[in-house]
């Protein structure tokens, strides 16, 4: 099956680029690797026949959010001299905490079996017509609540951005 090979290939890319995000010394490189990670994940969405989600993922994450990240990092001009140095104690505790989380994840997924696809009957569920219908009928309330959340975040950003409140 070609989709299986593609799945492994994309997973390999996603994990490799994800590691590169963490391991690169230069923050600009990290952001660019994160963009590549998003591309690999968008490939996964396409494999799941969720083309709309893949396109929106690229537009929103790679096209907008990561551009803003890049923007801020370029303006901050981070380099070796300005890099904040954490104490050894902090580094050790971070390593222990994230290591424990890794153990928890491995333990939780150790006995995981193949989860059968819930909606096999309709393979086109990820296409935009079906997605739109579901979003505006079954999941209307969460959809609207999410939009209010975004509106609230936007108003908050505008308030914070104001120089002086009269």
């Amino acid at each position, binding site marked *: 099956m070609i989709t299986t090979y593609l799945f492994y290939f994309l997973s390999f890319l996603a994990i490799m680029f994800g590691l590169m995000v963490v391991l690169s010394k230069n923050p600009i490189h990290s952001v660019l690797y994160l963009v590549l990670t998003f591309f690999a994940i968008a490939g996964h969405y396409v494999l799941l026949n969720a083309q709309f989600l893949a*396109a*929106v993922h690229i*537009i929103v994450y790679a096209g907008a959010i990561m*551009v803003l990240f890049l923007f801020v990092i*370029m303006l901050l001009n981070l380099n070796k001299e300005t890099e904040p140095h954490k104490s050894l104690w902090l580094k050790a505790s971070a390593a222990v905490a994230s290591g424990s989380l890794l153990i928890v994840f491995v333990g939780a997924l150790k006995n995981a079996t193949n989860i059968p696809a819930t909606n096999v009957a309709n393979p086109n569920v990820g296409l935009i017509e079906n997605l739109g219908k579901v979003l505006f009928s079954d999941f209307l309330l969460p959809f609207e609540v999410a939009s209010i959340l975004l509106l609230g975040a936007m108003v908050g950003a505008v308030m914070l951005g104001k120089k002086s409140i009269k």
Partner: protein
Amino acid sequence: MVLTPIIFKIILVLCVFGITLLVATYSTYAERKIAAFLQDRIGPDRAGPFGILQPLADAVKMFMKEEMIPTVSNKWLFILGPALALLTACMTGVVIPWGKSLIIGGHEYSLQITDLNIGILYLFGVVSLGVYGIMIGGWASNNKYSLLGGIRASSQMISYEVAMGLSIIALVMTTGTLSLKDIAAAQHGGHWNFFIQPLGCLIFIICAFAETNRAPFDLAECETELIGGYHTEYSSMKLGFFLFAEYINMFISSAVIATFYFGGYNMPFVGRFVHDPNWLAVLGIVFMFAKISFGIFFFMWVRWTIPRFRYDQLMNLGWKVLIPLSILNIVVTGVFMMRHEIMAYFVK
């Protein structure tokens, strides 16, 4: 040999690629000639008759120039910048329907490379990636002017993408599809979307100017403030790639505007006189390219007519004028589409 669909697609891809490059090449010539015309000059006339070989001479010059990569720059990203700019510029051509289907030996061959059912979103995604080439190039040059130019370009493109997306939403509402093929086909018989969505069309065209970094929005390479902007440090063909990407973007933008709002390959009245589908398809391509040529001319016309905006004016126009206008456009379109239901609600 039977023309299998895959071979036809490969030929089509090569044709679209070649034509894109050719049109972009001669757009540089057209730009200089139109500038000369608008400023009452003669323009390039040395290379070949009427200076028709000028683009070739320019290309040779670009390739022969000494190539310099600043030692303080980030070498790989410095090379990646113009490559990405050209790549994203070339990627958008695949979803544009260049004409109707050709029928060869009883088989139908679509003149669109691929008909994605999320064609508009694909287009939008590629456009939103176009900013990376400029940003990476501007940052990797390790030059203050380049960085400022790159940051200007990216903030401008992000700002205008919002208004562009909102203006497309109104178009999607009236057409009911995200596929460019269906949008083009639905405009058959003079039902151009321009007449349905005039405000959306205007906003889209303004945003297209901003997305392609063309005058009056070419602040990214504002000479008086930023020397050459994001491509200050670039020389030889890498500079050529950046400039070339701009012309490809202009060509593709014209094609998209023609497809979205001006009927695409549809032509008025010809259907009454020509009935052979192949001739119709060929004429459709001719009309499509006529519309694109006018679009490119319009881009140049505006460049040599309107002076460059100031940066705060640009941002005010984007955020305080175009976005509210496009939201208003969506609301008005929605109310108009639902007018019978709304009337039925109030008039019991």
